[in-house]
């Protein structure tokens, strides 16, 4: 009981300490280039979190970037064509993406699993060609010169202008904290418990009276709304959007960030994975053209020898030396075509 309480307190304390550390980052990091990398990392980490929310209910999505792009386009259109403020565009992006997911869920979630995956993939392709062929949405060249975030005017305080990277960083950080709190709140309730149950075994969950379709729909709508919210922020931060920026490879990269960090860790995993994948190619910039090759080789090595992500190194159940045994077996069995060696 005491240990339980203590671990809960440690979790809360570490959450606040992390926020404090992140809040003083702009004081230490002066270079706008690195601040830009950090903001991009936050956006990508949030997208990887939405992937984990879906994965928790046993759904693998290849169309996350669609909802991301939907939020971005909604906000950009509302601000540019209707002249509304960004502070309306931001929630509107989330609401439109969430509603779109809600409307589509009867079609997508009908039988779950592979159908969901394939239909999502088709949705991803459809999104790009529809926007690419619509003059209102700016064809394949996309929308340029999206206005920056409207200044915040608070009484008794100086006006916050969004001209440098620092206000954007704090806005991104606040969005990240809100999203993390919302996701944690969902995970703590009955809905989160139902998600875990469905993820473990959908049939079994159904047999004990959990409405699999409904809880999966909640997860899908929540993930899409989060993606739309961060997409709206992304559109105004970048200043331009184009349909090919929301293609399937982006979704693929989000999955990669999540798995790199560790699927078992819904919040720390994506942040770590996205940070590594964003900063590592920059660190090895001296090898310019070899950068992608090194990244690819590292990914393959990671999935071979550390399949549950980097954070699984800190899991308690892990035995020491597991990786070395696997490396030995890998070297032994790679060059034999022997039917006895098939490991199940």
């Amino acid at each position, binding site marked *: 009981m005491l240990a339980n309480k203590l671990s809960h307190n440690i979790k809360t304390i570490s959450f606040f300490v992390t926020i404090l550390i992140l809040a003083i980052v702009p004081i230490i990091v002066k270079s706008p280039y690195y601040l830009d990398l950090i903001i991009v990392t936050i956006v990508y980490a949030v997208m990887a979190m939405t992937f984990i929310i879906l994965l928790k209910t*046993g*759904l*693998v999505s290849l169309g996350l970037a669609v909802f991301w792009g939907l939020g971005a386009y909604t906000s950009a259109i509302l601000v540019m064509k209707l002249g509304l403020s960004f502070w309306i565009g931001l929630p509107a992006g989330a609401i439109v993406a969430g509603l779109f997911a809600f409307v589509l869920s009867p*079609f997508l979630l*009908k*039988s*779950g*699993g*592979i*159908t*969901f*995956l*394939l*239909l999502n*993939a*088709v*949705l*991803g*392709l*459809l999104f790009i*060609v*529809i926007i*690419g*062929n619509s003059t209102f949405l700016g064809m394949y060249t996309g929308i340029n010169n999206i206005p920056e975030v409207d200044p915040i005017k608070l009484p008794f305080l100086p006006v916050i202008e969004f001209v440098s990277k620092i206000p954007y960083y704090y806005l991104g950080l606040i969005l990240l904290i809100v999203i993390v709190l919302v996701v944690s709140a969902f995970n703590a309730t009955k809905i989160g418990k139902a998600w875990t149950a469905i993820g473990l075994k*959908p049939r079994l969950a159904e047999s004990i009276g959990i409405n699999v379709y409904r809880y999966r729909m909640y997860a899908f709508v929540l993930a899409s709304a989060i993606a739309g919210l961060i997409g709206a922020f992304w559109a105004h931060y970048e200043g331009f959007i184009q349909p090919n920026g929301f*293609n*399937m*490879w982006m979704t*693929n*990269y989000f*999955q*990669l960030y999540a*798995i790199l960090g560790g*699927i078992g860790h819904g919040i720390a995993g994506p942040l770590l994975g996205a940070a590594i994948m964003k900063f590592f190619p920059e660190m090895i910039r001296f090898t310019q*053209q*070899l*950068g*992608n*090759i090194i*990244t*690819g*080789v*590292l*990914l*393959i090595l*990671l*999935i*071979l020898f550390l*399949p549950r992500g980097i954070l699984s190194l800190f899991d308690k159940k892990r035995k020491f030396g597991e990786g070395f045994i696997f490396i030995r077996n*890998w070297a032994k*069995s*790679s*060059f034999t*075509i*022997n*039917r006895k*060696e*098939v*490991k*199940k």
Partner: protein
Amino acid sequence: MDIYGQLFFNGLAIGLVYVMLCSGMVLIQSVNQIIFIAFGQFYTIGAFLTWIGVDKLNFPYFAALAFGVAISFILGALTYLLILRHIQFKQGKFLATLIASTGLMLVLQQGSLLVFGTLPQSIPPIFKGTLNFWGITANIDKMTVIAMGIIITLFLFFFYEKSRIGRGMRATSFSPEIAEMHGINTNLIFLVTLGVGTAMAGVAGGIIAPTYGIDPQMGASVVWTIMAMTMVGGPDSLLGALAGGLIVGQILSFGQFYIGGMVQVVLFVIIAIILFFKPNGLLGRGIDIGVE
């Protein structure tokens, strides 16, 4: 009549290239039961190795094509031996293979940019001239694409249905455990399947090189379209790949002429409708890629 014939002819040529690509993808999807998104890069590699063979090493075209196909086969087999073999039987294999093939995709994409350069290339047509029949102006080069497409597809079907290894593939795609119980070396079957699948991508790349031109990004851009096409016929049915490739080729050829760029929207809507009512595709049996 003329214009319909011409459009049909063009659609047939591009459709048969898609058939070759789709059947390679379908083999990998149905036997290995994974989604292999590095597949597009083997298409690039086959095309550029053919170009290197013709342009740099002065091979005759068909020798260069064989060279490209052989290297594609070897690369695919090595992929199985070094990477996929160790992860495709485990829990959560879907995500593991997806990430491993993303890594492979990055390596092959950047590697082919380094080795082959970043410029679009083309090799001189093998046969020059045109034929006129039934009101169609047929480029002999496109006729070569059609003829080779038909020959290679027939050969693949013969291999899959009649040969010993092909029988092993069908048994393994049905159930690896039961196939193994009946004395099939499933490890060898998985290896050969991945090799044959990537070799099909390589041969498709080599065949389009003289007619349509090649560029280093073509593999990355085509892979999701191939996946969508395999969904039409069924992700695990070779006959479905034939149907899917031909249907999509015709839709693209006719649609491009009548409605322009919107043809892709129509195509994907059709695919979505087919998938909604028949999740396994028109002819598919349903694969278990371990999503759940």
